[in-house]
C-alpha cells in the first residue's frame, strides 16, 4: 500500500482523513484506487475528460510526476504520493 497525503481542503471528501493508504503500482493506479474509494474526490482531481486538473500537482516522494513518467510513474510500497495544490498569482 502506498500512502497518499491529502491536502487540507480535500479532506472533507475522504472522511476527514489526512492520508489514505491505497493499492497501485503506478500513480495512475494509485489515484484510481483513491477515487474509486472516495468518488467525491474525483471531480476535484480530474476534468470531465479524465485529465488531471492543471492546478493539481502530484509528487511521488520529492519528485513531480510531470518530470517523471506522469501517470505511469511507478509507486513502491514505501512511497508517499502527495497531492500538491498549484498556488500562483500576480497583479
Amino acid at each position: 500500500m502506498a500512502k497518499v497525503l491529502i491536502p487540507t481542503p480535500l479532506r472533507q471528501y475522504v472522511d476527514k482523513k489526512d492520508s489514505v493508504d491505497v493499492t497501485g503500482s503506478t500513480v495512475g493506479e494509485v489515484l484510481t484506487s483513491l477515487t474509486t474509494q472516495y468518488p467525491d474526490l474525483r471531480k476535484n482531481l480530474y476534468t470531465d475528460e479524465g485529465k488531471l486538473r492543471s492546478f493539481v500537482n502530484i509528487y511521488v516522494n520529492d519528485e513531480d510526476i510531470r518530470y517523471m513518467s506522469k501517470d505511469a510513474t511507478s509507486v513502491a510500497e514505501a512511497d508517499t504520493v502527495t497531492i500538491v495544490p498549484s498556488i500562483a498569482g500576480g497583479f
Partner: protein
Amino acid sequence: MIRIEPEAWKEMVRHAEATFPKECCGVMIGAEENGARRITLAVACRNAYEGDQKDRFHIDGRDQVAAERRARELGLDVIGYFHSHPNEDAYFSSTDLKHSWPWYSNVVMSVRGGVFSHAKSFIANDDQTAAEPEDLHY
C-alpha cells in the same frame, strides 16, 4: 478569523521585505478550531514563476511538499499561503483568484519601497469566482 502568531508573522515580513522588489511566497501552518484559524509557523518558499517576478509568483511545489511534511511532523495543517505585492496594495487580484484553491487563507502583504506596509487575508469560493475578505490579526 485568522490569527498569525508573532514568530510566524516575523518570518513572513522578513521574507516579504528580503524578496522585494520581487513577489515572495510561502506556506502558513497551524490549526483551525471552530472556524478560528491560528498560524504558528510560516515557511518561506521559492518563487518558481518563470519570468518577471515583480508582479507574479508561483510557489515551488518541492517547497510545498517539504512544508506539508513539516506540518504533519508537528501535528499541524497547512492552513493557507502568503505572498507579497511589491509597491502595490494588499488586494486579491483576479490572477490571484484564478490560481488559488478554495478553503485556504490567502494572506497578501503590501511592501512599499522594501518596507512592509499592510496585509489582508482572503478565502476563495469553491469555483474560484469570488473571494471573501477574512478578519486578519497579526
